[in-house]
């Protein structure tokens, strides 16, 4: 018996990851979910076969995410998925039910693992491009990421309201758009720009920008970097990336009143 496979390449941060499924309707669901981030499947950097299983008690537990390296493979698991990924072979397999949320989490984890080795990271931050430069707005839930994203003026391109994609490149750091949306429920634009400033967000009763001490900048950055693996080497890499980022770019505290005037200070 011949089974037909359906493929889609999801390209985030310029990194195409091919997803292969035997369920055409799931492929269509992914195409809709990642609209704007679907690339060519000709030259994927990594490939995943997605095995869909019926929803069951086994795949609906509350187990927290767990990521570890075993025998050269990353093993990823959470209540709703199991995945393996061999980074050297460039191949992996995901077992989940037919929902877009599980695969979204797997992609986030895989990107954090890839970026960690390249000096980059995913950051809990909104990001946007103005006049060819990217600005990051980082903070925990409630700090204002969604608010500042909602207030972007017409000349600003929103990259994400929730999870920023930071890549190291030859000249510094680049922020890339992501489909990882937060409360705004709006996919970012699939474009990128060199990062100008990282702002640590805080809501307040006036608009102001203040310098941040180096140690506090590193601490805040580390607090907001997405990281899942229980792996000492990767912790070291993330620590190094955070330090190098702070050495390279200004980190400032942005206190703002939640209205559009905050954007007068940015750019």
């Amino acid at each position: 018996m011949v089974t037909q496979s359906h493929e889609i390449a999801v390209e985030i941060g310029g990194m195409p990851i091919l997803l292969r499924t035997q369920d055409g309707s799931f492929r269509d669901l992914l195409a809709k979910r990642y609209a704007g981030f679907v690339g060519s499947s000709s030259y994927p950097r990594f490939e995943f076969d997605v095995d869909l299983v019926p929803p069951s008690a086994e795949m609906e537990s509350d187990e927290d995410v767990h990521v570890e390296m075993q025998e050269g493979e990353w093993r990823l698991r959470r209540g709703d998925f199991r995945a393996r990924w061999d980074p050297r072979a460039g191949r992996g397999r995901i077992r989940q039910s037919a929902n877009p949320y599980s695969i979204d989490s797997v992609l986030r984890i895989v990107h954090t693992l890839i970026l960690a080795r390249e000096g980059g990271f995913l950051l809990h931050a909104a990001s946007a491009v103005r006049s060819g430069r990217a600005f990051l707005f980082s903070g925990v839930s409630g700090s204002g990421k969604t608010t500042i994203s909602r207030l972007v003026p017409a000349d600003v391109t929103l990259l994400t309201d929730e999870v920023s994609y930071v890549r190291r490149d030859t000249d510094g750091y680049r922020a890339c758009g992501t489909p990882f949306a937060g409360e705004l429920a709006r996919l970012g634009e699939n474009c990128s720009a060199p990062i100008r400033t990282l702002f640590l967000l805080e809501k307040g009763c006036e608009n102001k920008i203040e310098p941040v001490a180096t140690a506090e900048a590193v601490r805040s950055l580390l607090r907001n970097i997405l990281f899942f693996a229980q792996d000492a080497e990767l912790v070291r890499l993330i620590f190094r990336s955070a330090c190098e980022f702070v050495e390279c770019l200004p980190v400032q505290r942005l206190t703002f009143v939640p209205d559009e005037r905050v954007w007068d200070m940015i750019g």
Partner: protein
Amino acid sequence: MSERYIARSTAIAARLLGGEMMVMSAVDSTFFTLNEVATAIWRAADGYTPLSEIVARSVCSEFDVEPEVARRDAEQFVDELSRHGILLVSDHPLNNPSSGLVESA
């Protein structure tokens, strides 16, 4: 009181940035920023120099601090970092003292 010997764990990452030593545990990701005195002790933690000698040589002679205060503060600092596995502590010299992973900016 018996002597204590301290060594930097290998399961850490550390970096001098903006004049401050930052240390992170690779085991539980706890993050510390060390002040000047703590950094001096940290740097001297070679596994075979007694803590009392480190305090005398690297703290009392370099900073304006009373020996008794310096000793007490050093003990507290060592206890706290050892709880997180960042410093290894022993009552005898550590045969394989680690250098830790220290990067200078």
